[in-house]
Every structure is written in structure tokens, then in C-alpha cells.
């Protein structure tokens, strides 16, 4: 495959043709912040935090969707770029609850990290803010849309699994939000609580309810495990705090790895030191169910009992 050579921050890099500036920079060891870019489902180009300066281009292009070309010169931290990134961060903060102190995502949040990186302490802009009610409608996922930065990664990852596409963008402009049909709480939708969206959300808009209040993000050691409940082999993390396994969270979703609730619950039962009772929707209401019921093992268990009773 043909390759191209470009200069990023004075450093020459050679990459295959078709590589984005973002990936070329990564190859050169240069970090560019991203919110909406998802290596699995690329080319969305919406958050604009990844803009860079390329002399000869009219504006500041987004590096995640700009193809590297021969002889291209890229500056990733020029004054114009820094001004743009800080302003975008300020704009996000102007419409974001300053809630880091109690936020589950504290310490593992890109918005927080980038504000630190660019010295953005708060927003200079005051005005309208969203005040959506907290969506606490189901036992697995807490949605705080006031923290959502509309990167769209949850939408795209959910739609990757045939028959899901539970959420999508709704409304327009400043009122845009991520919503299930009819803008109901997630608990009233067809969500299967697989956790794909949680795995990709760059901020604290989506968090695990079963992990709430159990620890701070930096207290956890993450131990990868592979689910074996079916052939897909989805990846999960065991969250270990003080030697105890506190919860199981979904890791990198992908096209062949759908993730599902059953898999996650199964791993919780298998690994957690103190597994919490599972809940399932029965007649539209969430109720506590037995593990056998949650994992779909009732039939198997019955049969086992029968066989053993013989």
C-alpha cells in the first residue's frame, strides 16, 4: 500500500495512505484529544475537540476525519488550536453541571481531563442550561443527560447490534438530546441493559447503577475477563477494590461482540464477592428475580434437579 509522509509538530511521520491525521499523530506519539471519535465506528466528526491547524486549509479541520496527505504540515497545539479547544470546552461547561465532586465518572472523564490539560477552570459564558430530570428508571443504568455532550457514541454503538438501536438523537439544535422512542426514561424502552453505551461514553452521562457509591474510579483495578456464556466472547472488566471484586463493567464493544445483560450478570454471579440480586422487567415493572431466572437457567435447573432426584 502506498504511504505518505507528513510533518506533525515538526516531526516527520510516514503512514499508509488513507490514515487520518489523528492516527498519524498517535503513531508519532502525539496526543490529540477526542470525544466523539470511535475507532470502531469512525467519521462522525461532531465534537470538534480534535481540531488541528493545517496551513493552507481554510478552517481548523477535525483531525479524526482528515486524511493525511503527502507533505502535509500539521500543528496540533498552535495558539489557534488551543484557543479553539479551550473555547469548545468552555462551551461544554457552560451547559454542564459542575458536579465532579460527587460524579461517578470523576477521575475517568475526558471532559475533566481536557479541562485540566487546557487550564479551563469554568465557563466564562452564562446563560441557558439544560435541567433534565435524572433518569433512574431501571436497575442497571443511570442516565444524567445534563452531563451528556452529545458525542453520539452511545447511539452508534447501540445501533451496531441488529435489532437494538434503542436510542437515537432527538429534537434539534440546542434542544438535541439522546432519547429512546417518545423520549421516555430508558426503563420504559426496549433497552436490554447490555452496557455497550456505558463502555463508550466519554463523560459521566451514563453510569452503572450497581456500582454507584461503591468507590472512586481510581480505586479500581480493572481485570479483563472474557464472557463464556455464548460464542461471541465479549470483553468485560472486573472492578477490584481493596482486593474485593465490586462489580463487572462492559469493555470495548464491537461488531462481533454484542454484549448482553445476561453475560454481565453471569459474570457478576461468578466473580463478585457480594453479588447483588438481579432484576428483570415483568409486566412492565422491574422486580427482583432469582439468579436462575435472570440467567435463563430455570429449565436447566429443573432438569438437573429431576435427574439428581432420580
Amino acid at each position, binding site marked *: 500500500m502506498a504511504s505518505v509522509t507528513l510533518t506533525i509538530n515538526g516531526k516527520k511521520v510516514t503512514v499508509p495512505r488513507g490514515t487520518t491525521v489523528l492516527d498519524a499523530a498517535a503513531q508519532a506519539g502525539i496526543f490529540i484529544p477526542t470525544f466523539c471519535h470511535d475507532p470502531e465506528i469512525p*467519521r*462522525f*466528526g*461532531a*465534537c*470538534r*475537540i480534535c*481540531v488541528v491547524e493545517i496551513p493552507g486549509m481554510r*478552517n*481548523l479541520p*477535525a483531525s479524526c*476525519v482528515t*486524511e493525511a496527505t503527502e507533505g502535509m504540515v500539521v500543528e496540533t497545539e498552535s495558539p*489557534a488550536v488551543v*484557543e*479553539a479547544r479551550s*473555547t*469548545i470546552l468552555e*462551551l*461544554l461547561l*457552560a*451547559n454542564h453541571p459542575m458536579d465532579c465532586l460527587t460524579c461517578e465518572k470523576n477521575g475517568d472523564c475526558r471532559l475533566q481531563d481536557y479541562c485540566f490539560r487546557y487550564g479551563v477552570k469554568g465557563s*466564562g*459564558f*452564562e*446563560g*441557558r442550561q439544560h435541567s433534565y430530570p435524572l433518569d433512574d428508571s431501571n436497575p442497571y443504568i443511570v442516565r444524567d443527560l445534563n452531563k451528556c*455532550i*452529545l458525542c*453520539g457514541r452511545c447511539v452508534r454503538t447501540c445501533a451496531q447490534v441488529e435489532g437494538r438501536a434503542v436510542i437515537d*438523537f432527538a*429534537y*434539534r*439544535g*440546542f*434542544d*438535541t438530546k439522546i432519547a429512546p422512542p417518545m423520549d421516555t426514561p430508558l426503563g420504559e424502552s426496549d433497552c436490554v441493559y447490555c452496557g455497550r453505551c456505558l463502555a463508550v461514553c466519554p463523560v459521566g452521562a451514563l453510569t452503572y447503577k450497581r456500582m454507584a457509591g461503591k468507590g472512586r474510579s481510581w480505586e479500581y483495578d480493572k481485570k479483563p475477563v472474557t464472557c463464556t456464556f455464548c460464542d461471541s466472547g465479549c470483553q468485560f472488566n472486573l472492578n477490584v477494590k481493596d482486593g474485593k471484586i465490586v462489580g463487572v463493567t462492559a469493555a470495548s464493544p464491537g461488531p462481533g461482540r454484542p454484549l448482553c445483560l445476561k453475560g454481565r450478570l453471569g459474570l457478576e454471579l461468578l466473580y463478585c464477592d457480594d453479588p447483588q440480586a438481579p432484576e428483570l422487567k415483568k409486566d412492565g415493572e422491574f422486580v427482583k428475580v432469582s439468579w436462575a431466572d435472570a440467567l435463563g437457567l430455570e429449565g436447566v435447573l429443573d432438569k438437573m434437579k429431576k435427574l439428581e432426584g432420580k
Partner: protein
Amino acid sequence: MKNLMDKCCDKCKHTPASPCKDYIKCRKEGPICHQDEACKQKRAEILADINLPAGSPKRQVLICAGTGCTSSGSGKLVNKLEEELAANGLTDKVAVKITGCHGFCEQGPLMIIEPLKTFYTQVQEEDVAEIVAKDLVGSEIVERLLYKDPNTGEPAKTYENVPFYALQKRLVLHNCGHINAEEISDYIANDGYAGFVRALFELTPDQVVEEVKTSGLRGRGGGGFPTGMKWGFVRQAQGDKKYVVCNADEGDPGAFMDRSVLEGDPHAVLEGMMTCGYAVGADEGYIYVRAEYPLAIERLKIAIAQAEEYGVLGDNILNTGFNFHLKIKAGAGAFVCGEETALLTSIEGNRGMPRVRPPFPANSGLWGKPTCLNNVETFANVPQILRNGGTWYASMGTEKSKGTKIFALTGKVNNTGLVEVPMGISMRDILFAIGGGIPGGKKFKAVQIGGPSGGCLPDELLDLPVDYDSLTSAGAMMGSGGLVVMDETTCMVDIARYFLTFTQSESCGKCTPCREGTTRMLEILTRICAGEGKMEDIDSLERLARVVKNTALCGLGQTCPNPILSTLRYFKDEYIAHIQDKKCPAGACAALLTYVIDPEKCKGCGKCLKNCPAEAITGEKKLPHVIDPAKCIKCGSCVGGCKFEAIIRA
């Protein structure tokens, strides 16, 4: 044979299923396949009925049925006229023709009598009997209905003498208002589809692209991209299937040229698209029309149906093997769908959120196929370029902007309406010679060009030639062609706020800078207009404008700061007056106005006291009255009522 489109006799074998290659040419010059004087004669008569030759004893009454005139009541004129004609036994001698917009909607309903070109304005139902009796039975012009020069009072006998028309160069609009837009025969009688026939029979697709390149035509949808070059890209793009798409989503608030072309001359757009299809190798096209344009959609449907009926559109057109099919898509109300990638994704049935480019539609457009997307006016220029040649077209305009441009001239100007002028004309000529200057003896302040993505030009730039590059360098842009004239009573901060209100509510919400940035810029402008601005706000505005312009994903965000940047550039003092002196120099921002009664002038008549809805005025009869500023809601009701001009707005 009653209609130009009919066969002259049984020797004619044309049907859409087995088409004759000379069908279109035959309409005007026929019969071609056989010699028959009677057929030729019939054809000539029908043609003479469509376009009355000068000196014809027959008459034709053109009634404007554009949106403007219809809402001023032109619909009633048609029935009334037909009644009157029947009553006077004139039905056979006088033809009534319903046309599209003439461009001078403000003077509507308009009526033109051919072949003398008599131009009646503001015609009401009551006037019809008089017109019939005097002008059509006799030959006496009804003087009181003629257009009169607002300055001299001089009446204009024909539309050619009306200054509004005299200085225009109506190339794209030449049919608008003169032909019946619901009859394909009217279009063909006026050389319609001749350019397409030339392309199809005399030129290869590459030569068509070359011809358009030679013409120097640039996109009329805003960006000004060279049309021939775009066609060339689509021609070269690899693909088993290609599309032609017409952008008729005209969303710029204050612009209606595309609408008038669609309503007044829909076949010109069809012909342009078909020619494009032949040139780029596409066999299918879509016209994406704004939902608010029901009449345009109706006219397009009729035009497409007629073109199909006669085999001008469809499979094996004129037996050349070229197929072309057209579909209409009605928009659903989102300005951003005028942006090309949003438009295409909307046709596909999605939320109209723009996507990143490249890939450009020329390579990957509708359903991933190479797509040639142009604006209505761009396509409407094509038939004449093909008919008269690219070199002819390139002889008009300036070095880099060729041909003409249609503008929607509105706002504080005497003659509002659609004007088509050669590129390179000065703004002053458009506003003062054609537009007739500012009404009410007010002083000109600025003209906003290019709508929400454009900018304003102040007095000192009035001699700027109107072409793509001069406008861009002055911080404005050609945009789609809205021209809004503002006088001394228009506040420039308020205008910037107005445009931001528009873009803020039309932002699709996909990218951060535009979604959040327009909201904050609008809030700052609103505060300034309300007298709550701070000097730092100007810096914040400048920074936001710069960042949004530089980083937004699509053209909407990238251009929406232009109204702010250009008003800051030319009218910064107005911003400062709002912030520091808490004054609106134009007297437009209600929150910054004060109303006081001049005790010297007040005669104590008490009229203002009655007019005030807020009970803010007190005073004894015959003694000077006073306004309580705490109660005054600044509605201005009191001012006009005072005979002694004692109430001062400042």
C-alpha cells in the same frame, strides 16, 4: 391540432414509446418529416397565439399568479376578467394567460396587456370592468392603474419604461411572468428545450461539460463553485449509477428567487437538470423543494407530468437512448437541509444532519453514488448556455463572475421585489436606480447581503461591484441572493441578534461549536440589546465568532458568525453605544428607549393619556403631561397620537 404539442396530422408518428428525434424542433419549425403547407400554417398560427407578434390585432392579458400577487387577490381577477370578456363578446379575441411572478410583487396584483406591454399595477376586482371597456374594447389606457414614478409622478406606459425593470437584465427570469408556467407549449414556443436538444444531438457529454466550463457559470446556491468543474468531477467519478439533485430548499429568510423561478418557469429547471444528467451520465434526478412552497411543488408536478406525457422526459428521450427520470421530494422544515450533505441524507429519510466532507457528493452522494447537486438558479441558467453557447454567456459579467444574478430586494427600499442584474453592477445601482432608494426620505445605513451567512455593507461600500469575490473580501457574501436594505432606524446590533436567533434555532445540533456557540452568541447579543451588555462582551463575541467559524462542521456554523463580524467591523460604535451609553442610536431596541413629553410643546390635550395602555401618563387638562418612566412599557402608542409632536423618543 389545438395545442402546440399535438401532432399536426396522421403522418406524425411521435409517441413517448417510439419517439421521433425531431419532436421538439418540429414544434417550432415543423413539420419536418413531411412537407405540408397546411400543417406548417397551423403550427405558425398556434405559435402566434402563444407569443403575439407586434402589431397583432389580438390581445393577451397576462395575470400574475405568483405567490405575492395571489395573496394580494389576483385569483379573483381571472374569473372576473373572463366574465367581462364574455359579456363583451371578446372571448375569442382576447386570451387570458396565468403567469408566474414578475418580480414586482409589491405593486401586485399585476396585469400586462400584450402585445403593447401595458403594465397595470395593484389591479383590484373592481378595476377589471374598466380595463375591459377601455383598453380591450377600445384602445384607451387606464391611466390611473399605471405605475407612477414615486419621485416625479410620471406614469409608465409599458413595463419596459418602469425604472425597476429598465435597468435589469432578465436572462434567467425572461420567461417568468411572460409564459404560462403550467403549459409546456409556452416554454417550447419560447425556445425551451432547444439547448437540451443541441446537447443531445450535437455535443458529446464531455463537450457539454466544456461548454458549461467556458460559460464561467458559478453555483448560485451560495458558494459560487464553478458549475462546469463540478459537472466534470461527477462525469469522471466511477459509479454504476449517478444522480442529479436540484437544491430547491431556499431557506434564507428574505429570499425567494428560486421560488419564483420554480413557479414561473419550471421547465427551465427541468431542462437544466436533464442536460446535466446527459453530461454527467445520470439517469435519475431529485428536486428537493422546501415544504413551505406548495405552489412551486404543484407547478413542478405539472411540468414533470407534461414533459413525460410528450416524451420529453422518460426513457429513450427523442430516440437517443438517453433516459432521465425526475422525482420531487418535499422538505419537512429544516433550514440546514439546504446544506448539500444534509439535503442528501434527508432525501435518504434521515435527520438532516450534515456529514463531514470529503467525500464530496460528486464522488459519494445520494445512497453513496456520485451525485451532481446544484441550485435552482444554477440549473435555470443552463438552457441558455447550451442554446447560445458558453462564449456568449461569458461575455456578460466580470472576469470571474459571469452572467447575471437574481436578488430578492427587500426591506427599507421603495421598490421591493425580484431583480436580475448583470454581475459586476454596483450595489448603488441596484438599491437606488432599480430599487428607487429609501422610502420616507430616510437615510440609508447598510444593506445585508447573503442572509444569515452573509454580512452587511455600509454606505462607503455602495460602489462595490456585485460579484462573488468582491463581496467575500468585504466580509459579506453572495449567498443565495437576499438583499435587505436598512435605514437609519434599523439597529445593527438588533440585526445581528435577529440573524443569530435564526441560526441558533436552525442549528442541527450535531457539532459543539455551532450548537452551544450560537446559543451563547445569541444570549450575549440579547443582553446588549437589552442594555445589559458589558465591554468584555465584545471580546467574547469576537472570540466565539472566530472559533465557531473556524471549527464548525458545516457551512451553517462556519458562516453564522458573519453577521456579527461584519456589524462589528463596520458598526462597532453602535455596539459601544448600547453597552456604555445604554442607548440604541437607531431607536430600535425598545429596552433602551425613553419617552418624554416636551412641556414646551405639550398642550395638555390628554390624547396620549388615553392611548397609553400602561397608565404611565398623568396630567391635568390644558397643562403639560408627564410620563412616569417606571410605568412606561415603551410601546410607543402615545407618540403617533400626539398632534403637537410633543412626545420625544430617545
